[in-house]
């Protein structure tokens, strides 16, 4: 089986790995436009933020025995009749199966000034983009991020982390409006504000101002002037962004403009080959086009359920297609819950969103604007079907696993709004006085407070006595302090002169040593600050 993969990115390279695992005999050729080995595109915003190094985002190489990798090579045509892929080198690659994993390009808004990207203007789609942005941050001060989706927020927070003044411009009513409703959006805005990121929502760029030769040629000039510069630009002239005029007429100065206005699937090759293309290359549930020898996965594909642009979907498609091509039944164990989890990787702002409320869903909300927290959970048929969670990362983590695994939700879904995992696990340890009689003091030997009290009643007067009689403290020794505390407390509360410890009658005259354990526990509060009260007792497992 000859398999040609177009695209050596996150999904293309993963597909090679998946197919080799299932069909080691397949002859695989991978064609990648970039010179680089496959890398983790998801982490480019982390590179921009300075959180991870460029070297650490390289993914496992496809360049292994049995795989031919052509890097820095573009496919120019797909001849489906002859079943060959034509390369820019002129070479033709015959195939039995052709897999399109060409990904997506950054969408460049059609705004005057961006006909040709001036210096200081970058999309963030490739390693080169990330490198250029990082280099640019060294001598820029004001950044404008155009587009407040996931990537826009990550970049805005990342640049802020690098100390730049950042303005985030978003056409929708609030950031991430595809994923977040008003309440969650407001919490996200509050979070961004706390980080010192200026936001302009409900407006888009009307024009990008560009200077030439260091002069702000279009600063405040009529639109036509900008267009002039742009169209007459030969590419040799230095043009540099200086700011952006927004649709409300205001202008924001910026010497770095990042375009995060979404992506466009890379479908040129498929289109020219006459394959059906809507937003992406149309494929069926088996990731196959109308031409059974041609497949598409990742961002360039448009499966029946629609493309999410999330890597999880691309990797799932890779696994599935590998199984299909290997002749195995496609994996039937499709995930129980949803896979469309959108998790922001922004420094200082936690947002996670997933799913969509369905008819009949029950939605519960925790709204805590002052703390920048908003949790909204929809439940249907006993499972979580949608989540918007801002500023509550631990709750978000729990909700994610509940959603992706469709685990049973609590009888009252409002329980999901706080941390259900740990619940009320940590309660304050009781003092010897308040500790119930059946509370375990020494776990290693299963000794309860009641056992120690009884031991005292039988004449034990020191920790050693108690240890000999009950074996408390003789395991790991972790309860030694607690046992000392109990002995001290019993000594103080005891009227028995043979106790050998300084003591007096308790205020109410109770005689704990001879009373029932239950009475003892009620007899006397431990003096606070005595040190005894500070001692901890392992919690009971009863």
């Amino acid at each position, binding site marked *: 089986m000859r398999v040609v993969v177009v695209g050596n990115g996150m999904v293309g390279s993963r597909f090679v790995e998946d197919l080799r695992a299932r069909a080691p005999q397949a002859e695989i050729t991978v064609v990648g436009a970039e010179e680089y080995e496959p890398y983790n595109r998801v982490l480019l915003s982390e590179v921009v933020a300075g959180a991870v190094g460029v070297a650490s985002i390289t993914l496992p190489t496809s360049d292994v025995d049995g795989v031919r990798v052509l890097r820095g090579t573009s496919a120019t045509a797909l001849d489906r009749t002859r079943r060959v892929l034509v390369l820019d080198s002129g070479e033709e690659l015959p195939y039995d199966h052709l897999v399109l994993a060409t990904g997506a390009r950054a969408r460049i808004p059609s705004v005057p000034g961006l006909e040709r990207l001036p210096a200081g203007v970058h999309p963030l789609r490739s390693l080169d983009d990330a490198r250029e942005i990082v280099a640019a941050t060294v001598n820029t001060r004001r950044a404008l991020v155009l587009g407040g989706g996931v990537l826009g927020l990550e970049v805005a927070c990342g640049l802020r982390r690098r100390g730049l003044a950042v303005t985030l411009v978003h056409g929708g009513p609030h950031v991430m409006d595809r994923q977040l409703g008003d309440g969650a959006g407001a919490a996200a805005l509050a979070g961004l504000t706390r980080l010192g990121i200026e936001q302009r929502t409900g407006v888009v760029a009307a024009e990008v101002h560009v200077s030439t030769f260091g002069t702000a040629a279009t600063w405040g000039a009529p639109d036509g002037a900008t267009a002039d510069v742009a169209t007459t630009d030969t590419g040799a002239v230095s043009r540099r962004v200086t700011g952006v005029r927004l649709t409300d007429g205001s202008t924001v100065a910026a010497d770095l403009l990042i375009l995060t206005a979404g992506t466009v699937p890379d479908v040129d090759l498929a289109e020219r080959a006459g394959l059906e293309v809507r937003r992406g290359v149309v494929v069926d549930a088996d990731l196959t086009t109308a031409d059974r020898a041609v497949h598409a996965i990742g961002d360039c594909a448009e499966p029946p359920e629609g493309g999410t642009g999330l890597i999880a979907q691309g990797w799932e498609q890779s696994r599935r297609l590998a199984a299909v091509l290997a002749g195995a039944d496609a994996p039937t164990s499709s995930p129980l819950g949803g896979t469309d989890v959108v998790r922001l990787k922004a420094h200082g702002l936690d947002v996670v969103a997933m799913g969509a409320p369905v008819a009949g869903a029950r939605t519960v909300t925790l709204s805590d604007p002052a703390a920048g927290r908003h949790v909204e959970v929809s439940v249907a048929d006993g499972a979580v079907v949608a989540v918007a969670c801002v500023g509550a990362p631990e709750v978000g983590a729990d909700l994610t696993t509940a959603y992706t*695994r469709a685990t049973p939700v609590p009888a009252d879904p409002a329980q999901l709004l706080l941390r259900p*995992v740990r619940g009320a696990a940590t309660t304050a340890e009781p003092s010897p006085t308040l500790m119930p009689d059946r509370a375990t003091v020494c776990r290693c030997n*299963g000794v309860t407070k009641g056992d120690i009290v009884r031991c005292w009643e039988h004449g034990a007067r020191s920790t050693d006595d108690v240890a000999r009689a009950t074996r408390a403290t003789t395991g790991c020794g972790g309860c030694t302090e607690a046992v000392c505390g109990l002995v001290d407390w019993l000594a103080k509360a005891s009227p028995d002169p043979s106790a050998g410890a300084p003591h007096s009658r308790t205020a109410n005259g109770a005689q704990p040593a001879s009373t029932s354990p239950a009475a003892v526990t009620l007899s006397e509060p431990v003096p606070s600050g005595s040190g005894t009260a500070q001692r901890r007792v392992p919690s009971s497992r009863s």
Partner: protein
Amino acid sequence: MPAGPGTRTHCPYCALQCAMTLSPPDDDARAVGAPVTVAGRDFPTNRGGLCQKGWTSAQVLRAPDRLTTPLVRDADGELRPASWDEALDVVADGVRRLQAEHGREAVAVFGGGGLTNEKAYALGKFARVVLRTPFIDYNGRFCMASAAAGANRAFGIDRGLPFPLADVGAASAVVLLGSNLAETMPPSTAHLGDVRAQGGLVVVDPRHSATAALTDDGGGLHLQPVPGTDLAVLLGLLHVVLGEGLADEEYLAARTTGADEVRRSVAAWWPERVEQVSGVPADLVRRTARMLAARAALSRREGRGGVVVLTGRGVEQSSQGTATVSAAINLALALGLPGRPGSGYGAITGQGNGQGGREHGQKSDQLPGYRRIDDPAARAHVARVWGVDPDTLPGPGVPAVELLRHLGTPAGPRALLVHGCNLVVSAPDADRVRERLRALDLLVVCDLVPSETTRLAHVVLPVTQWAEEEGTMTSLEGRVLRRRRALPPPPGVRSELDVLHDLAARLGVPTGFPTDPAEVFDELARASAGGVADYSGLSHARLDAAEAAGQALHWPCPEGSAGTPRLFTESFPTPDGRARMVAVDHHGPADDLRRDAPIYLITGRVLQHYQSGAQTRRVPALATAQPEPYVELHPLLADRLGVSDGELVEVTSARGTAVAAAHVTPSARPDAVFMPFHWSGEGSANRLTSDATDPVSGMPEFKVCAVQVRAVGETSRGAADELEVVR
């Protein structure tokens, strides 16, 4: 406790092998029917402490139903008392007949990690020399196989802790992955006091276990992943260490190979993805990695306490157990820990002789000294010691679960000899195991008490236990310890060394199976010479002398050596002297959640019981403290199911159903229930567990499977209670 006169030995149970002294019974001992008084003895591992199991261990010596006569199943199918000669003849005749009819492979052997080194060695030799069957494996396959495979491929050697346990006590950070020390070897937690005081204890466990609770109140960090996703957490920790430039690059360059592949493989495991898979918040993954890296750096530069990464069964009993161990080792290597005094990676061995038991030939692919049975040089050496032609030694057999699956099948073994293991309680998918054992023509079980497995046997042979025998055990830190006899066995009880000697003689091998443990050990030492686990410098006499002089002897200990408390200080025993980093990936459990099984089941232990409970369930104090199996579930899940604490719940997996009492506790995750596995019967956890195994180690996935949980009894409302997820 004062160390008076008495017999200095070690606890019969776990791999911590707490030192104890046995003396003539005092009043307290007599009151509970114990023939000796047990006292903890000061020792580097247990520091004089014992848990409740250790304190009460002498009562097992006089268990009311202690086996003291051989039993043979008669024509009516009943087990009847028999003489030793009669019983051994039945075994020998059966073996001869089945091997004549079906070939040598018709007889298989199943050993245990609780056997002394001497018995484990003799058992392996018996299988290879007398039975000449490849089919021998042992319950250590359920216990240490993944840790062993991971350590072997990284370091070229598998010694649970390659450093003394006391090093843990001096560390500034300790990571415990899937280990519940506070229940499984309680005295060992004494070593965690200092690290907790520094906030340096990291526990990765889906439950807020007693051990995880040690991280509370500033003791450290508890990472509580979805069951079966510990590997993703480790990959995330590695991602942060490598991605944020926190790794010890000098160490990686000088002492490892494979770092680049690992670096690339974890590029795909950024913390937010780890969070989605495991439920551990991304920020907690980052904080943990940074804390570990910072402490490793301080240890390196300023000589502060080291960093120790430890794994336990929680992560190893998994279909990706070896991969998880590799990831833990990779993390340790990235932080520059292995071989640095005070730091390192280790696996916490479970069973009493789980270490020694895996070194001297009980494993299907192994010869004494941790040699490979498919290595011609190893075969030649061992055959020379055994006085046989190397060509007569069988080749590798199959790992435990595969062996059990084939028992009594047309192509599988027809007879099985079981030593030191209660298979029908402790093996996964226990109902199937019971079926396979029933299908055998001959099942021979050596045991102390009538365990559940003996009840299926054709022949039961009563054997000695700890305080009745001499021998050696190798503890979790690779230290060889002397087990000493404090009292004679009850009349009618024999050592397995006697059993093997007598059977060998009946099967035509009259020599080569001495019954004196010291003599067996000397042969073991010769057979191990030049192997990875080299004991050739050891003997009972030397161990006794060293102990009297307060010296510890850790293997490898070739002739003339003073032992090796710390491995890897100069190099790793790999061909190039470097540790090998192996890139691994997370796939998740084999038996993952389904619509009709939407809850995870985790299995594990409780403090009061050991393994299948055959010993500890017979001690009244332990049985009273933990009388019955239970199902631990979170209050939210209990509420959803309509179950109150103490009520019965029914847990059903694809393999079987168990019913046990509900223990409602917030220490569980709401998406997972927990059951201890020490019981048989309707509450037996292993009726539910999956026999899916790790592809490298053959270790079964005890720790996670998918189940349905519902209320039974009064509160049952039938199918309406089932948690079917409709999407």
